[in-house]
């Protein structure tokens, strides 16, 4: 394999790891609540701004911000579920989509109002450090983003498999009424699911800040990519989402090589998305397995 392709493969896997965390948040929310969250990427954007301001104003390292973001964004997700999303649970998909579209519009414009439309970037001393991996340059910050995201996905998986709360969440995903019948507090499970989903996507945003710009408009791209991954991996299927994310990451970075212009890389992803929706809507790995 030539060096450029090896480089593309490795960068693709690295960013794919972060996509995995974004998509796992989305698929968890969908799996448990059957809600499609069009504002998903906006929570990522707010996570990024949080890390940016923590660093710019107080010199807080983004990785420390990521740790602090876990309880903070869990609480935000919990509150958003309780106030905004709860009334539309069980309503038509159109209503849910319109509500979360409204939320996404609001959050984007709010970010523009509060933080201006300027592109910001968070600078850390170690931002440009790289190491050599059999001919490919890998930056430490991208490796860290990949490792933290994968670690979070694994931790979430263990949480869902091993703990009582996790099992209750899975029971909700399987069968709402059955779960209620055996005494699971559904309303609480929804808040936990939304809180966890939002915490995942916010952390994914934060670990990207050392190498990705921050702006009010970063969200929609990640929302769409997360949808692509979630459909690819099967709705509600967490391991499927991780596999789908790595595929999308690689398709994107190899796409940047083979397409006439690197910024056309997303085209490959969206075409893949439409093909999967049309020919294999249950995803490559089957749905709701988580």
């Amino acid at each position, binding site marked *: 394999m030539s060096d450029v392709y090896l480089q593309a493969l490795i960068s693709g896997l690295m960013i794919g790891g972060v996509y995995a965390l974004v998509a796992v948040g989305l698929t968890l929310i969908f799996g448990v609540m059957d809600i499609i969250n069009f504002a998903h990427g906006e929570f990522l954007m707010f996570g990024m701004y949080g890390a940016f301001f923590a660093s*710019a104003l107080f010199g807080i390292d983004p990785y420390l911000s990521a740790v602090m973001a876990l309880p903070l964004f869990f609480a935000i997700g919990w509150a958003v579920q309780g106030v905004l999303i709860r009334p539309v649970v069980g309503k038509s998909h159109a209503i849910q989509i319109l509500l979360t579209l409204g939320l996404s519009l609001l959050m984007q414009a709010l970010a523009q109002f509060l933080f201006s439309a300027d592109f910001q970037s968070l600078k850390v001393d170690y931002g440009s450090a790289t190491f050599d991996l059999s001919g490919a340059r890998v930056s430490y910050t991208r490796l860290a983003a990949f490792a933290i995201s994968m670690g979070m996905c694994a931790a979430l998986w263990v949480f869902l498999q091993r703990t009582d709360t996790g099992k209750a969440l899975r029971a909700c995903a399987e069968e709402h009424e059955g779960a209620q019948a055996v005494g699971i507090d559904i309303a609480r499970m929804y808040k936990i699911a939304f809180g966890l989903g939002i915490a995942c996507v916010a952390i994914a945003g934060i670990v990207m800040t050392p190498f990705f710009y921050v702006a009010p408009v970063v969200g929609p791209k990640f929302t769409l990519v997360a949808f692509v991954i979630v459909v690819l991996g099967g709705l509600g299927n967490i391991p499927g989402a991780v596999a789908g994310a790595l595929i999308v990451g690689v398709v994107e970075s190899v796409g940047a090589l083979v397409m006439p212009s690197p910024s056309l890389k997303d085209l490959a992803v969206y075409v893949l998305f439409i093909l999967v929706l049309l020919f294999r809507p249950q995803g490559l790995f089957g749905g709701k397995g988580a």
Partner: protein
Amino acid sequence: MAALRANWFYLAVLIGLLILPAYAESEFVTAVMPRGLSGSALLHIFVLIFFFAFMSQAWNIIGGFAGQLSIGHAAFFGIGAYVSTICYVHLGLTPWLGMFVAAVFTALVGAGLGLISFHYGLKGPFFALVTVAFAEITRLILLHWEFVGAANGILLPFSPNPTFWEFQFTSKEPYYYIALAMMLASIALVAWIARSRFGYYLHAIRQDEDAAEAVGVPTKRCKVQAIALSAALAGLGGTFYAQYTQYIVPDDMVVGRVSVEILLGAVIGGAGTVMGPIVGAFILIPVGEATRVIFEGGGTGTSLSTLIAADMSFGDKFVAYLDYLAAGGGGGLAIILYGCLLMVVVLGMPGGVLPWLAGLRARARRRAEASA
């Protein structure tokens, strides 16, 4: 009775709109409108209202009547603008004809998208996602296609003394009447659809597609026709926009925000009703424009980045930041309001403003009858 009163109301509004340009600079208008808004600035706002009402009405056919949520109508809008502009710039075809070329082209694109999506049984959120992806693909193609100016878009050739055939006017008045005519035509078309067999089929599909299919409604064909018609209108709107602004660029037109703005009027006014998109546009645009005028006074002149980097204590920075926000911050307040309105309507009056008002009236009548 209520319907009759509503018709008189609409007729009065229509007459008012028809004669408005003649009085746009009159003392009365200047006195009545906030901040003395008059003349071409006033007409511009009405052009925006008519245009958004028209675009929202276009969306209403597939998104409202057929109940197939499209979040990608910016693509049809953008394609329409590009087709007529290419015809105009490269072939010298007048936009008056170019807009129908655009409509036919976007209808075909819409029908293609519908045929593929509905053939494979995409419904609800999956159809919505395909429309989002379709719009993004359209944007990326336009953004990289050198022939149509790529990221720079196309600046329409400027004529100092435009003729009618160039679809360029030095005053706002002709645009005003064209946009008004387009809006009225879209209302007439949708009113006709609502009473036609086609409209009943769409209504049945929206209520319960499987049941509609079971009683013999050709659901797939109807949905494809609905999206083609909707796309054709959106394409016409694209031509109007291109001629009005004289400048088309992918990143201003084929973006998610525009797709959402197109559906906003219909959803807020009442999706699947004839007058919903019109009412929605008449609510949204004035609210948005007023917000922009009142709260976005131009800012304090300092950028947020300089503020962050400034050599001040945190407390001083915070006070300076509050000043920055008070002067309108980075803008976007109108869109904040739009987002809030959308959520409030979805949560509080899920059918939109018009059906909600009708419900209120029906309840008041029942109460009056009960007490009588």
